């Protein structure tokens, strides 16, 4: 791999950022392919466990978005 392509584990809230991601897709906007999206029902579902489990399994970064 010539360039460093990090994996960014993304936890997106169904009602907020996931909607925004959907809209971005529908609007044919371009964004980096490094994010791996996991939809969560609400940011309140988020737990420190998820973050540590993600990092432990080799994610380069974690992004939580409400």
């Amino acid at each position, binding site marked *: 791999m010539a360039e460093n392509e990090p994996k960014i584990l993304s936890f997106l809230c169904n009602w*907020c950022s996931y909607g925004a991601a959907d*809209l971005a897709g529908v609007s044919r906007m371009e964004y980096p392919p490094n994010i791996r999206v996991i939809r969560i029902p609400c940011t309140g579902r988020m737990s420190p466990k998820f973050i540590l489990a993600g*990092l432990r399994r080799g994610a380069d970064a974690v*992004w939580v*978005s409400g």
Partner: protein
Amino acid sequence: MKNLLEHTGIAPGRLHFSWISSAESTKFVDVVKKITEEVKALEPALNYAKTEPKVN
């Protein structure tokens, strides 16, 4: 509250939080770009990743 991660030396800048409304697709794209750039600037090797034990 995630200060502890950085406190124990898990690289700062590996955990991001944001707030985006479902109508803000432009902000979403912006944030993705920014975060990707920031993480790219870090070393790819991450000491927290667990190497799975070999099964003989």
